[in-house]
């Protein structure tokens, strides 16, 4: 087995084997760079990128590996965030409670809605996930005791077993870092496992997988719940990062942005989701420095990416590497 692996000419990442290592090394070094340059904003921007990268990796699990295009993924982020916010209203501010609650709530919503959504497929799946996302959005908007439309300000970040660990910007950064690393390693192991191969098989041909004897529905439902819970983790971190939750976290535009992140980076590679989240948020940061109407520029860029850069940024990089190594 080891021999065949070593001799295998197939390079699944097409010359980009070092990419995940590079990504995480770069993230690990950001606070040090910030310390040297004195640019503390870099740290909070980095946290934000990694928080959305967690949700994007989870979405890639659905879209890239399962062909389940969820247009309601932001709802799970919102649920995780609201778990933190609502618990803090009742004076429960320890992550040992709020994190499990955030994960459980978003996983439960994924289970309940997934049972219905996964009966449909194709465009109907896109639309019904959108519908459930909108339901969560309107529910949050009408929660008058918890801020309603205006959202809810959280008094302070969660403590961890009583220690105010998350309140230091740099410590928080590394907590987010390890959450992203954990998510990535977990998803990488998942897609490589037997479970992951069934899900990928169902993406290619669900009928054939069912004929072989797999209950495709169950595997997809499990994937949907896992992706929901991971988005809940992202929501937990987001609420702590901004010390604020609002229904806008669940808007369908946010779900659209998450899909854009995954596609921008490159589908079905997990690395692409992280690259895409970083590319999207940094482009937003960069363009909005020039003009508040930055989306007028960004919209056509998206169209061009779809038309000409199939496979996203990762695909583009792969083509470049191939061209150089051949030439």
């Amino acid at each position, binding site marked *: 087995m080891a021999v065949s692996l070593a001799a295998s000419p197939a390079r699944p990442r097409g010359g980009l084997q070092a990419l995940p290592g590079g990504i995480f090394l770069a993230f690990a070094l950001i606070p040090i760079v910030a310390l040297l340059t004195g640019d503390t904003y870099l740290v909070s921007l980095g946290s934000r990128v990694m928080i959305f990268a967690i949700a994007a990796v989870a979405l890639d699990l659905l879209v890239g590996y399962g062909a389940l295009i969820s247009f309601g993924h932001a709802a799970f982020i919102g649920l995780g965030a609201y778990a933190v916010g609502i618990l803090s209203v009742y004076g429960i501010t320890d992550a040992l409670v709020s994190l499990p609650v955030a994960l459980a709530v978003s996983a439960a919503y994924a289970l309940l809605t997934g049972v219905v959504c996964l009966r449909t497929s194709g465009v109907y799946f896109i639309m019904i996930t959108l519908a459930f996302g909108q339901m969560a959005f309107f529910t949050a908007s009408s929660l008058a005791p918890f801020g309603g439309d205006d959202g809810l300000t959280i008094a302070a970040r969660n403590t961890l077993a009583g220690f105010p660990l998350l309140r230091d910007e740099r410590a928080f950064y590394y907590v987010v870092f390890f959450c992203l690393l954990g998510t990535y390693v977990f998803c990488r192991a998942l897609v490589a496992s037997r479970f992951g191969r069934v899900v990928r098989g169902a993406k290619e041909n669900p009928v054939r997988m069912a004929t072989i004897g797999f209950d495709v529905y169950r595997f997809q439902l499990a994937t949907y719940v896992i992706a929901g819970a991971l988005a809940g983790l992202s929501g937990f971190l987001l609420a702590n990062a901004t010390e604020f939750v609002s229904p806008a976290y669940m808007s369908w535009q946010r779900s659209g942005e998450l899909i854009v992140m995954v596609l921008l980076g490159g589908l079905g590679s997990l690395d692409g989701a992280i690259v895409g989240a970083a590319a999207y948020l940094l482009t937003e940061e960069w363009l909005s420095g020039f003009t508040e109407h930055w989306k007028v520029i960004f919209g056509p860029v998206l*169209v061009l990416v779809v038309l000409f850069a199939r496979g996203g940024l990762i695909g583009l990089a792969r083509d470049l590497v191939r061209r150089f190594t051949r030439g």
Partner: protein
Amino acid sequence: MSTTLLAVQILNGLQLGVLLFLVAAGLTLVFGVMDFINLAHGAQYMLGAYLAVAFYALTGSFLSALVLALAAALAFGLVLEFAVFRHLYDRDHLDHVIATFGIILFLNHGVKLVWGAAPLSLPMPELFSGSVRLAEGLVYPVWRLVIIAAGLAIAALLYVLVAHTRIGMLVRAGATNAVMVSALGVNIRRLFMIVFGFGAMLAGFAGIMIAPILSVEPGMGDNILILAFVVIVIGGIGSIRGAFLAALLIGLVDTLGRSFSVDILRLVMGPSPARTVGPAIASMLIYLLMAVVLYVRPTGLFPAKGR
């Protein structure tokens, strides 16, 4: 909950319903015939309203603003089709979603750049600006009745076009099996372009008609887009008849739900929790309806044949 109020709300529901139908008809045709998800359809509705405001400022007449805005909406739709969409027909749905999402971002912020972020308004034509007494104690704005009548007329026109003309036959055939239609020697590209342009014009028309009673603002198309998607999914994608019935159903359920949810809930709970829960349930109602319909019939109520 008097009968007058009920009658007014039913009329409001019908008005929302025909408006949704105008938007959903183009969406369901484009999806049914070309298998193309056009999220930018709501932005075309918004653009129709903005164009009408702009042409009204130029000409000072509602009618010429209507005609010019319709022509411009059609032209814009055809340009979009030519420049972007036709390169995406044979891609998968995800590419459609992203590209048209990009167009929404562009248009929503583009109109902000051109006309500013503040809401604009379009004056109602003088002739239809009053209210009319329909029955004892039932006074209703004429313009809303005009919208209902125009919507129903267009529904009838669409029925004749789709069911009794050659181009309609090709559209129906295309919705069932586009490849076969193409193999029989029909210029499918031209058919697609006609359907797309027509759909864009209908969305623009809806935007123009609603402009006098709603404020014209960036992002006004987003909510109607989501509602229109709910309509075509409930109705069955590609089916005009399904879109019509589902649009009326959604219009009525949404309007009546918002008006009476608090009253109905007060029958089973105290007034204070009813006031909190009522609006939440009202805004979720149509999505619940959609979830139930899709659970029972995963391809909608009236799926186009052959799908």
